[in-house]
């Protein structure tokens, strides 16, 4: 018995491979947060007045929440208080790259992305992925812009969108996640430095997977990016997001906001592989990941689908949600969340049914290993007018070892009697008998664990784009190394 346990423990203790630091000159502003800092960020980005106004309103709102000590405490996570005045809110690579050509990017940054396996080079066209890369706070490269522009698709950094498409930004910014939404959304609205912007015009099916890669590099810096994706009538877009960070002893704050808007008959598929630095074996360091992601199915027959594989971060607080406003609209949430060592995740989704015949599907797979604590928190709300709404929720937990925990908090609120709701939940443990069975057939213990876990996650991996699915499987086995204790 002990051998199985030992092997799994070794397996879970594999080192984080993306923890290197890039030596690069950076431009950063003083630590702390006040109106002057907000003005400084806005002026550095040469923003129009409406953006500064919005930021200041957001800051004042956040400041009032902070003074009222209204940082949300309801999640099933524990962490030392965050000192918001001890964080740098803006950091950028000093040699500000012109965005016309990849050649103009600092070679150190290109090398970093190369190390991370991010296809920034144009020849990767064949891979069918267009990439926007955000390094610390600033977007450094967006590939295939020309190709996409021919079809009327806008894929650029948020800053560029503010400059070149202010009318779109003004129309949709904060329309799904207003700055008053929650503490971290307010903070993000005040200080967000960059992010990605996508607009797919009427009737256009985006032929490439659009992808953003987020990298935190600078120390004692927060990363606050904002993504806004709008799919106009009948449009389709699939968007991928990946993230890593160096190994550092102190915790770093990441508070992002993602807003999706789908108009009539539009479809948005949003996939995330989140691998921020999770902290070390003793739980020191790691990213605090407080993220607000929400999509609005504004039009009839629209569809928004979230798929996430969460393996990183010391703390994950994240609930990608769908507001199903248009009649017949569809919301989906597929999630794998893994916590190992001392990681904590409180994640799930909210499906808010407003329109008639709206449907939602929730499939959540939580894996806890080491001392990891994994919480699923899901809300399904059927409002009065949502006649004929349907929801299916499946929520499974897998435990590896006996020091970890799995928790489930489903909230269901139904105000229309025609609603049909299904909820399934299970908790299981990787059994000695399963491991022995696979090993008796010749598989090494670590391969056996990975096979069991991958089988458990299959329903979710199926939703990921092919390349990402392979990546996710590998990541899962790496993140599990040393996991059974």
């Amino acid at each position, binding site marked *: *018995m002990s*051998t199985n346990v030992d092997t799994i423990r070794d397996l879970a203790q594999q080192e984080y491979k993306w923890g290197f630091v890039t030596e690069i000159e950076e431009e950063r502003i003083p630590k702390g947060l006040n109106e002057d800092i907000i003005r400084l960020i806005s002026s550095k980005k040469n923003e129009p007045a409406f953006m500064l106004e919005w930021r200041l309103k957001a800051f004042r709102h956040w400041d009032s929440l902070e003074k009222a000590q209204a940082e949300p405490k309801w999640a099933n996570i524990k962490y030392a208080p965050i000192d918001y005045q001890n964080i740098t809110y803006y950091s950028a690579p000093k040699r500000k790259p012109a965005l016309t050509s990849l050649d103009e990017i600092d070679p150190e940054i290109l090398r970093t992305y190369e190390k991370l396996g991010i296809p920034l080079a144009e020849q990767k066209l064949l891979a069918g992925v267009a990439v926007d890369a955000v390094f610390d706070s600033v977007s450094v490269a967006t590939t295939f812009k020309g190709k996409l522009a021919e079809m009327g698709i806008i894929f650029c950094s948020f800053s560029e969108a503010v400059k070149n498409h202010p009318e779109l930004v003004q129309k949709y910014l904060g329309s799904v996640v207003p700055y008053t939404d929650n503490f971290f959304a307010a903070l993000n609205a005040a200080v967000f430095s960059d992010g990605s912007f996508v607009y797919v015009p009427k009737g256009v099916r985006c032929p490439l997977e659009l992808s953003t890669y987020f990298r935190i590099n600078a120390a004692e810096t927060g990363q606050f990016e904002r993504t806004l994706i709008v799919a106009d009538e009948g449009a389709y877009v699939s968007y991928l997001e990946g993230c890593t960070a160096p190994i550092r002893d102190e915790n770093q704050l990441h508070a992002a906001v993602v807003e999706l808007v789908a108009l009539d008959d539009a479809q948005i598929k949003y996939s995330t592989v989140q691998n921020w630095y999770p902290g070390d074996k003793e739980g020191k360091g790691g990213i605090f990941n407080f993220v607000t992601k929400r999509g609005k199915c504004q039009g009839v027959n629209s569809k928004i689908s979230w798929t996430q594989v969460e393996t990183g971060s010391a703390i994950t607080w994240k609930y990608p949600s769908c507001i199903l406003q248009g009649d017949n609209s569809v919301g989906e949430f597929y999630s794998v969340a893994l916590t190992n060592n001392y990681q904590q995740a409180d994640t799930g989704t909210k499906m808010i049914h407003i329109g008639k015949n709206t449907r939602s599907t929730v499939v959540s797979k939580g894996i806890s290993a080491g001392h990891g604590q994994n919480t699923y928190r899901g809300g399904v709300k059927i409002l009065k007018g949502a006649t004929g709404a349907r929801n299916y929720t499946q929520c499974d937990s897998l435990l590896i070892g006996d020091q970890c925990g799995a928790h489930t908090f489903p909230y269901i609120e139904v105000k229309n009697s025609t609603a049909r709701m299904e909820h399934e939940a299970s908790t299981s443990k990787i059994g000695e008998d399963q491991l*022995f069975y696979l090993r*008796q*057939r*010749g598989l090494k213990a670590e391969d056996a664990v990975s*096979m069991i876990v991958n*089988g458990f*996650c299959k329903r979710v991996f199926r939703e990921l784009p092919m390349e990402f699915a392979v990546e996710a499987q590998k990541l899962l086995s790496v993140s599990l190394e040393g996991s059974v204790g």
Partner: protein
Amino acid sequence: MSLLEIKNLHVSVDNHEILKGINLSVGAGEVHSIMGPNGSGKSTLAQVLARHETYQVTDGDILYNGKSLLDMKPEDAACEGVFMAFQYPVEIPGISNAYFLRSALNAVRKYRGQDEMDAMDFLPMFREKLKLLEMDEKMMNRSVNEGFSGGEKKRNEILQMAILEPKLAILDETDSGLDIDALKVVAKGVNFLRNPERSMIVVTHYQRLLDYIVPDFVHVLMDGRIVRSGGPELALELEDKGYAPIEGEAVTRA
């Protein structure tokens, strides 16, 4: 030289001794049956041979191909050619039978320094073996043992044996839970896999299985010891008279 040499094997679980000095020699190509009443230690012996780590070997040794099995992890023993058909096969949700078996086969091939087999070569071979066990092709894509009937699970075990082609196969109560038709199919599969290089240890409570898989030797295990050995006729005698007379003998001798 025997393929398997069990010498004075003592095995305990939680300090409770279950096997109390087993001696057994299995030559290449021989089929040995281990019979005995419930609780005599039959399954423990099977599990120890498959290197299950719950069992503590307190004395004695098991030589397999001249090497001590006790130094091997379960996966090493498997790669060396030891296969156990489980009494209670385990379910692995989300992993297809085909994927699982190809991974296992390739793990074994890799260990032996052979090239891994790709799906194009594997699938025709897989289909062939499915036919042998009269199994539906759908079994390829179903999750390992998930939702299988008792009979399907047992057939699936022999299917795995047919694919992995072990040198030593241990069949742990393969007949339990099988109706007579399923039993015949399973036995047919096992008999097909008998050859001069492959040895088998058939652990069973009932003589019934041995009508179809006729062993070269039968051993009776009682209270952790082999109390009698003989040819296939010994099984018939047990069927006729039960274990009680032998038990009496064993007690008298002790």
